[in-house]
């Protein structure tokens, strides 16, 4: 038993590290370090740099322009990206709709959509959840009624992240009301510029409108935009959700957060002449986080080892999602504790790209509560942690 990388893997790690050190733009790194929200342009710019290198789509097969990397190489790449703070690709195109198009789309759809996703020319968003269909996604009510060569779509989707930037949306729509709820769902691609689509921003607790409600009012969609067969959408969607749940442990990002937490603690006065890093209570909590992170990391490596010998991702991804998100949230909480009174200002615009006013508080202290609030979503989205526990109960414990 060992967890060593092979010589080839080590060489690959070195290559990735050097590439990231040289090519991840300094201005983006500065923003990430200062907890400033990256703009659409920032994200696209970085993604295009990766595209130029041929590394835009680590999880895609080579035939579609992916890297063809092994699970371990993908792990190394994700780790190095996370450690340096480089943003992962916006998942909606690359990680969510693309695998579905590859698996179930026709040739024309593959030609039409995949190259633009790979090159980050087109921004996708997700139309899954509805106001009354969250954890119970299959109860969704947005309808698509066939009318000649078109579908007419009516309804509302919610928790649509960055829909304000999106060119296209992939949607689950109801095409049959008369059968079991999972059996009347279809998977439809919709151009966001189609008449009848409107967005309503939803302001989250950090004051930022990161998500939207999307309304469809007699939106006419070419039937050619249907993926696979009508009423088979649920099957396709489940594949997509599996992809959403991989890489969700966030180990590299949490490592980075923990490192930053220690740095901030070392610079935070305890009020008695020392720093918080020397404070025994705080130090102990940091240690607990570090231990938890180790346990999580090795759980992820065990999963990775299983994947490497060709096993399908199983309920292990539920463990990684639960522990990874709750650990990350706990770290957010500790940043608030460090910031103390400096966590109180509510000045979200200070952490936007174009802020030019006089900043409040030292460093990024005034962003700590905002991040703590925003990241409550981590244990809710991507299949809430309650749903993950249900999966463990059913699939592992046989309950």
């Amino acid at each position, binding site marked *: 038993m060992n967890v060593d990388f092979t010589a080839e893997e080590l060489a690959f790690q070195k290559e990735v590290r050097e590439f990231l050190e040289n090519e991840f733009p300094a201005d983006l790194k500065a923003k990430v370090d200062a907890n400033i929200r990256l703009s659409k342009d920032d994200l696209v710019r970085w993604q295009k740099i990766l595209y130029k290198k041929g590394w835009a789509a680590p999880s895609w097969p080579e035939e579609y322009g992916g890297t063809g990397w092994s699970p371990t190489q993908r792990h190394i790449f994700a780790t190095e990206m996370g450690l340096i703070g480089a943003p992962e690709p916006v998942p909606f195109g690359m990680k969510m709709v693309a695998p579905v198009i590859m698996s179930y789309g026709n040739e024309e759809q593959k030609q039409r959509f995949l190259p633009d996703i790979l090159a980050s020319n087109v921004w996708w968003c997700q139309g899954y*959840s509805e106001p*009354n*269909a*969250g*954890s*119970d996604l299959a*109860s969704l009510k947005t309808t698509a009624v066939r009318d000649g060569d078109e579908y007419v779509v009516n309804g509302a989707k*919610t*928790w649509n992240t960055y829909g304000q930037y999106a060119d296209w949306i992939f949607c689950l729509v109801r095409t049959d009301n008369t059968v079991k709820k999972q059996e009347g769902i279809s998977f439809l691609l919709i151009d966001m510029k189609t008449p009848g689509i409107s967005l309503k921003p*939803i*302001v*989250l*607790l950090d*004051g930022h409108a990161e998500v939207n409600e999307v309304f469809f009012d007699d939106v006419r969609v070419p039937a050619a935009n249907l993926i696979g067969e009508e009423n088979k959408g649920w099957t396709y969607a489940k594949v997509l959700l599996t992809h959403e749940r991989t890489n969700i442990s966030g180990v590299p990002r949490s490592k980075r957060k923990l490192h930053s937490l220690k740095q901030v603690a070392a610079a*935070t*006065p*305890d*009020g*008695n*002449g020392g720093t918080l890093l020397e*404070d025994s*209570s*705080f130090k102990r909590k940091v240690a607990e986080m570090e231990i938890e992170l180790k346990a999580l990391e090795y759980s992820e490596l065990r999963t990775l080892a299983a994947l490497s010998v060709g096993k399908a991702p199983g309920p292990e991804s539920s463990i990684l999602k639960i522990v990874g998100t709750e650990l990350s*949230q706990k770290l957010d*909480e500790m940043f*608030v*504790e460090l910031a*103390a*009174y*400096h*966590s*109180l*200002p*509510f*000045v979200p615009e200070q952490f936007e790209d174009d802020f030019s006013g*006089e900043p*409040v*508080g*030292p460093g990024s202290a005034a962003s700590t*509560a*905002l991040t*703590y*609030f*925003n990241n*409550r*979503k981590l*244990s*809710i*989205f991507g299949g*809430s*942690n*309650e749903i993950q*526990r249900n999966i463990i109960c059913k699939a592992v414990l046989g309950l």
Partner: protein
Amino acid sequence: MDFSYTEVQQMLKDQVQRFVQKSYDFDTRNKIIASEQGFSAENWALFAELGWLAVPFTEEDGGLGGSAVDLIVLMEEFGKANLVEPFLATAVLGGGLVARLAEGDRKEQLLGEIMSGELQLALAFSEEGSRFNLANVTTSAKADGDNVTISGKKVAALNGTAAQQLVVVARESGEPTSRDGVSVFLVDAASPGVKLQSYPTIDGKRAADITFTDVTVPASNRLGEAGKALAVLEAVIDMATVGVSAEAVGALEMLLHKTVEYSKARTQFGVPIGTFQALQHRMADMFVECQLARSIVLMAAMQIDSSEPEQEKNRAVSAAKSRVGKAIRKVGQEAIQIHGGIGTTEELDVGHFFKRVTALEVLFGNTDFHTDRFAQLSD
């Protein structure tokens, strides 16, 4: 043994509840927060008229009570309303120091203006390096004849934006963390050399970081004896700590209540989510947390009102804030989680209560600080 409220306390409670029901719904609160002032002057006048601004003061001082139990009755209801009006800053913090330190006509005048709603105060005590140590004061006050010149920076002065008078903690002598040498001064917010950096806070209130650059005030603006204000400051902060703990108890109760109601109304998989035992037990735990928080705040308030030695009172206050802080994390986070996505938005009031309790956890020392303080005082 008797945990019941007096008639006056019960009347106060009923009054606040009626006011909230009639004039402080979620939309109204949002409008007040978005307004230029950040609080409702009309409400403030009403609070004065109803005598609420007089609750923290003794009858001798022209107030209605002055006990910790009186205060927590009011603050709990304010917590349920998620009130943003600057009661704590003006009547408990600033007013508390004025009542304990000022003398004679000045005291009578200031307290009169506070209770009538004319005067708003902000207490400027915390500094960038002080964290929660009240003795850690680097803002300096240099006496020169009949004047005192104040220089330094204060952070997160609650109501710093609207206060006409600032109650400023400054050091006249001694090392930065020495217990001796700390004084309290009244400074007109419009004085030359006072620079405010104002901002909304995460819980919908307003605060300011305040820089004092050679701000000169008459020496008579010193409240109390030179260099001897720390113990009084500690007593006032202890009172305020019990106050915000009670406010948290009220807000936590609302978080529980709203979560339970939501779980009955929200249907997934064909049934209300409140029928899932996995969620029921978590709500039961939230209820237990709320009850423990309530109990320990009552304990602390009664201790403050008792004739126990100061150290016992300090310990009781830290016990309360520490335990309430634990409840804040648990109940607050569970409330959001059980609400799911909608809980993470500004659209429901549950998120606003969550943000309020998050701020309250920080005020006057977070959970770790008060747990440590409790331990140290137990030696």
